[in-house]
């Protein structure tokens, strides 16, 4: 018998009789071609044995160490209250709220998530989230094409996370490269046939970019501007909505999601209300029930695949409801002051590390450009430095492969860890 099924032999017999067949094999009489052999899989394990394997393999990972890699996923605090909430079976084991009368929990959470994203981005409408930050960027690129009625072609620089650019290309969007100098993007010469102009701030190298310049450049050629922002940074940086961005997207992982080797995370997307019909994904809206009682429901469903089929604005049907719930709980626990403090703590610790590295003779790749908590430091042999760091129980930064290391510092890092980083890297030459 399978591990999580209640059927006894007597159950099976009674049910087969009710169906009017003799054996389980008879239920597959219509299957052709049939698989006659057993599946060649390792023998079934008990829960205890399976968990022992999990714990054994976990030891093969250099995890849960002081970590200096960012580049799109950050080692931030995850408040304990989050796992307690998202572990509740009501949230964990439900599906898309097609039946709103019994799904008000998730629907209100989505409404609150959308509100948090709208507040942070300064844009009126947010969706219920998409797969991850890279997919939010790709969906935004397609959205600019639909709204401008142009071919999907977007202007980006090296400041946009390399992996995001790759996903955008997979989605069939043409990329036009903008000049990138001294750590920031030059928006002065944007081609006039693009559908969108993208600006990531802080960018891939941690530098705060000029969103307003990107927006002005986009609007000058009647294209849309898309800002790609870390939600924690928005606690201290001007909202993209106030800087003229038409769409804001990004990765919500820093809002209370563990690193978990790359996912699940959640991508967020926000825009002006006038563009909402081209916003992909689920949206929860407020309404009333038959008795006039306030309630929430999935709305503007005419945009979606299960209604519009081939004419839908995306094939997406899920949102990252559970990780969006994590982000919502995180935002509630931290509040506006807590988010600001996370940003400031990270920035102070990052600047301390950058200063100490420079004092030890290392150069920042972009010494004049303003950064928050991530920076590129020039290291002739970043791989060697990372090996030395790991020997000292530290996971170093991301080896950029061109004589530099991209270093991210979060609120979790301590002075002791930062000092150790400097010492080890200095000694590694």
């Amino acid at each position, binding site marked *: 018998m399978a591990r999580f099924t209640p059927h006894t032999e007597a159950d099976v017999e009674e049910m087969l009789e009710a169906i009017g067949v003799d054996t*389980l094999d008879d239920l597959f009489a219509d299957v052709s071609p049939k698989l006659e052999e057993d599946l060649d899989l390792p023998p079934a394990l008990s829960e205890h044995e399976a968990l022992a394997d999990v714990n054994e393999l976990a030891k093969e990972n250099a995890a*849960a160490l002081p970590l200096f890699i960012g580049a799109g996923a950050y080692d931030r605090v995850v408040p304990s209250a989050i796992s307690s909430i998202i572990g509740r079976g009501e949230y964990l084991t439900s599906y898309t709220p097609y039946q709103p*009368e019994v799904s008000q929990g998730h629907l209100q959470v989505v409404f609150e998530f959308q509100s948090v994203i709208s507040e942070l981005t300064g844009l009126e409408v947010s969706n219920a989230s998409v797969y991850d930050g890279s997919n939010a960027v790709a969906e935004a690129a397609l959205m600019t094409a639909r709204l401008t009625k142009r071919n999907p072609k977007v202007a980006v620089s090296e400041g946009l996370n390399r992996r995001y650019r790759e996903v955008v290309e997979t989605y069939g969007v043409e990329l036009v490269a903008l000049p990138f100098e001294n750590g920031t993007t030059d928006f002065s010469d944007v081609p006039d046939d693009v559908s969108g102009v993208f600006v990531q701030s802080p960018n891939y190298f941690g530098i705060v970019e000029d969103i307003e310049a990107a927006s002005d450049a986009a609007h000058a050629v009647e294209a849309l501007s898309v800002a790609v922002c870390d939600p924690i940074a928005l606690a201290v940086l001007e909202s993209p909505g106030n800087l003229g961005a038409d769409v804001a997207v990004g990765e919500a992982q820093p809002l209370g999601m563990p690193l978990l080797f790359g996912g699940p995370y*959640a991508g967020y997307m926000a825009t002006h209300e006038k563009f909402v019909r081209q916003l992909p994904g689920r949206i929860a809206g407020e309404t009333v*029930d038959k008795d006039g009682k306030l309630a929430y429901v999935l709305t503007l469903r005419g945009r979606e695949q299960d209604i519009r089929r081939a004419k839908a604005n995306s*094939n997406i049907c*899920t949102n990252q409801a559970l990780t969006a719930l994590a982000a919502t709980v995180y935002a509630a626990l931290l509040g506006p002051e807590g988010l600001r403090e996370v940003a400031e703590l990270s920035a102070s610790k990052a600047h301390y590390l950058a200063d100490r590295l420079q004092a030890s003779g290392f150069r920042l790749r972009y010494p004049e450009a303003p950064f928050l908590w991530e920076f590129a430091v020039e290291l002739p042999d970043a791989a060697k430095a990372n090996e030395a760091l790991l020997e000292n129980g530290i996971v170093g930064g991301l080896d950029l492969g061109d004589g530099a290391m991209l270093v991210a510092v979060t609120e979790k890092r301590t002075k002791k860890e930062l000092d150790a980083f400097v010492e080890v890297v200095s000694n590694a030459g």
Partner: protein
Amino acid sequence: MLGDLIRDKGREGRRGYTLPKLDVEETNLDDVLPEKARRKEKPKLAEVDEPTVIRHYTNLSRNQWGIDTNFYPLGSCTMKHNPRVNEQAAAVPGFAMLHPLQSEGQTQGALRVMYELQGFLAEISGLPAVSLQPMAGAQGELTSILMIKKYFEDAGDEGRTAVIVPETAHGTNPATASMANFKAVEVGLDEHGSVDVGELREMVDETTAALMITNPNTCGVYERNIKEISEVLHEAGAFLYMDGANMNANMGRMRAADAGVDIMHFNLHKTYSTPHGGGGPGSGAIACSEDLAPFRPDPIVEKDGDLYTLVRPEKSIGRMAAFHGNFGQILRAWNYIKMHGPELKSVTDMAVLNANYVRARLGGTYRVPYDELCKHEVLVQPPKGKKALDIAKGLIDHGFHPPTIYFPLVVKEAMLIEPTETESKETLDDFVGAMLELAESDPEELEEAPTHAATRRLDETRAARQLKARW
């Protein structure tokens, strides 16, 4: 109470979390950033303490049904029990606190999990090459269709502009075809509810890139001509793609490769028990033939001696996501398969037994448009004079989550019931009892249902006309 938002439960100055201390010299961001870049107004977020947060979201959850609280026979969604051991596995710090960009040498445990799951899915489907990167079923579909597109581009075969989808297809299938810039063309059904092979033969030509088939299809019916369908496509140089949403009916009983399938996706959150989480995160791994293998997304895991490595396939379509897919779901699915091994066949058997039992018990009162053996789900229609919507809302008052309704589109008042293998005969009997009672109930009374849920029926038009999607 509904509509009491977290933001309204706080007071300026309250906090629900304490942060690590500042143990280095403070950097004033005003000294670092241009004035224009600084935020002027603080976002209007909740300012609340932890007890309030816990109570708020706990109380909200009580207005939410899940598999844990109610029978949830949502057709084509496979709402089976989510084993808690998987949650424990995903919380192990050795995985939870692992960064996706750490080097291969630092992530051998995680890469081995991925490598082994690739192997398991290859064995289950009979298709040799797997990618775990797609983030959900719909993205697995898109990945597959983009791979097919790139295959034809690579072969210099430029006239392949059409993707055929059956009338019964999930909405994601035609939407996926459009997203990949193919024209979605519909093929009809025969009297068994299967793809009409005669009609298909007429349609398939040198402009056909692929047929997207769901097997068993969304009527719960096995595509008995699938082998012949694959031959029709292959003769024309086109591919057969299988939507694996309904794999819960197939494990150990059929293999996609034997049926002529070239490429398929799995829903790890359906068949392999990873929690649906209220609509996601899911995971949509794909498996394909050797011909299509070079086009898989970047990265896949290979084994080089004793070392697991991340590899970009030779002619890859590129990345579908920033990192390696929803690793947390990959880990859960891997663990689930390890706890079943070859006994996955029994999962399928019990799922199909449960669906056929419901079919047998409801037949006679409910109309069963394709009243033959069903697979893991059964399609029924209410008795004359009753609406699927009203029966669904009535079920809520009986404590059952409604099945999928008004889908598939090929029959009127469709109710698609998927019990899954993790439900007992007693639960099914109670559910059938409620369905039979509702079939007899007064139609006008039923229009009032639900009366015992958190809300009554909602004004959906108002939500769309007077959009309010934030506080």
